[in-house]
């Protein structure tokens, strides 16, 4: 049995720091991308195509002679936008449906949970692949909406379960007795109680969304007209024998982002739930 004391705090602290550093790096690149990128990503120069790492181009260049480091920095923005956008929409929708299901119970619950089951019946990003396929010239929004189409269901299930428990709590009963409206009870007395689990789920959801966007882009079904790590990796895979740097740069960017967000998620979960420590 693992007691909280058996957790190695030093390793944990390092993990949290690494997580913060990686996510911080992502956010800086996402927000300041065009400012800190050393070169313009629109600048095509075939004479310097497929160079290895060097002084002028730290990570080298791609097929069109574009600077890889700049491409990776620009890709952070697409990744962060899709990640945050998907989580925000899924969280909002899921919380809304889940709290109605859990709070009112009965038919609301039956119908709401059937919808959740339907959304969860699509494996992974399959429905997103289908939606992007149907969309003409998919942009960032199309990808965000496509990923949210099933993304909300996990939140709804979590919220529904928690709300069903919380609504029986004495303080909620008391609020009901005092004549508070359903909306007020939910908003003031029930939902704050599950901000912790929701934050944990949202963090892991962010990692999932970044990975999903990269997968879609790799399959050629990502947002068009923006720099995306997945698309860069797709380009790099074909070029792997000529230069491994294109694929490696994009792959490491995805890896570092997902790792960082997951580390933060682990830390958040542990700090909220001592029982989960070390599992």
């Amino acid at each position, binding site marked *: 049995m693992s007691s909280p004391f058996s957790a190695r705090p030093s390793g944990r602290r390092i993990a949290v720091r690494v997580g913060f550093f990686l996510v911080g790096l992502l956010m800086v690149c996402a927000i300041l991308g065009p400012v800190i990128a050393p070169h313009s990503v629109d600048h095509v120069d075939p004479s310097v195509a497929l160079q290895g790492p060097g002084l002028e181009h730290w990570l080298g260049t791609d097929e069109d002679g574009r600077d890889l480091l700049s491409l990776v920095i620009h890709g952070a923005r697409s990744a962060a936008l899709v990640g945050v956008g998907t989580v925000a929409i899924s969280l909002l929708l899921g919380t809304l449906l889940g709290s109605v299901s859990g709070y009112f119970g009965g038919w609301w619950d039956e119908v709401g949970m059937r*919808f959740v089951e339907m959304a969860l019946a699509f494996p992974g990003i*399959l429905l997103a692949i*289908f939606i992007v396929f149907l969309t003409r010239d998919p942009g960032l929004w199309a990808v965000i909406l496509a990923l949210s189409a099933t993304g909300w269901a996990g939140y709804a299930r979590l919220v529904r379960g928690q709300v069903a428990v919380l609504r029986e709590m004495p303080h909620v009963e008391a609020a009901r007795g005092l004549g508070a409206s359903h909306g007020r009870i939910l908003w003031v007395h029930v939902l704050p109680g599950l901000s912790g689990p929701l934050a944990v789920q949202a963090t892991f959801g962010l990692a999932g969304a970044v990975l999903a966007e990269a997968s879609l882009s790799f399959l*050629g079904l990502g947002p068009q007209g923006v720099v995306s790590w997945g698309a860069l990796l797709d380009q790099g895979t074909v070029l792997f024998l000529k230069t491994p740097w294109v694929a490696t740069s994009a*792959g490491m960017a995805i890896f570092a982002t997902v790792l960082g967000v997951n580390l933060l998620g682990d830390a958040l979960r542990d700090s909220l739930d001592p029982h989960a420590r070390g*599992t």
Partner: protein
Amino acid sequence: MSIVFRRLLGTAIVLVGVVSTVFVVQRIVPGDPAEILLGDHATPQQLEALRERMGLNQPLTEQYLDVWKGILDGTLGTSQENADRPRTVMSVLREHAPATVELALAGVVFALMIALPLGVISGLRPWSAWDQGSAVLALAGVAIPNFFLGPLLLHWFSVEIHLFPDPGQPLAGLSTLILPALVLGTALAAKLTRMIRASVLDQVNAPHVLAARSRGLSSSRIVIHYILRGAMVPVVTILALQFASLLTGTIVLEKVFARPGLGSLLLDGVASRNHTLVQGIVLLFSFAYVFVNGLADVVHTALDPRLRLGGGHA
């Protein structure tokens, strides 16, 4: 009996929901499929002819019933790849399915080969070097995208150490099973290892294990007959849920390794804008996923005697 019936009914409702969702999504996503297929330069006559052929001119209820007709007669509709020589979607899928099933199964086997011993050791000896090592590996295994690990291993194995023949073309020739299965299994193994560890850790001090220990049974007997059996219950559920990422993993890896499976077929269908084919694969994958999770419920019941009595929930 009523529990079985309720489950079946629930599954049926979910399947109806899946088909309806696939249908509704096609109608609410803006853009005319015929127009997208033909591009901007199509004449109105061409558009009209294609709409007619795709059944887009029929009333919505008719189109919806057509989807169901295709499912119930097992054809999944007519593939639009070749207007002169129409084939049913199912016959196309059947050709490509074995490669995908093979890859998915090999991936699961590889994942279990890694995750079972590593997870059990980590669970029996928490915070040992094995455990710490597997924790780091699990973190990395989850974070590394399989469409990065794939090309990486492919390059390393075929070019650097020549374990597999270098096909000249970087990715086309290596249609072997081993490498893609290795990649597919890695992420799964990473997740499974931690689950098995947590599950074993949970069982170590469970009452029935303590009772067995106090009766003086040997450690190996306790681990195999008492701890592992209980620990497998959540693993079956997790494995069924992970079937989803396994399926999408095959799509990605079939592209990387140029394997002629359902994933490659899906991407071909996407590229050629073959609506019925893409729809058919989406339906097939979703149905398979629902089926596997239903199966996991049954196995779950078989493994956990408490569920069989219809009493308390695990």
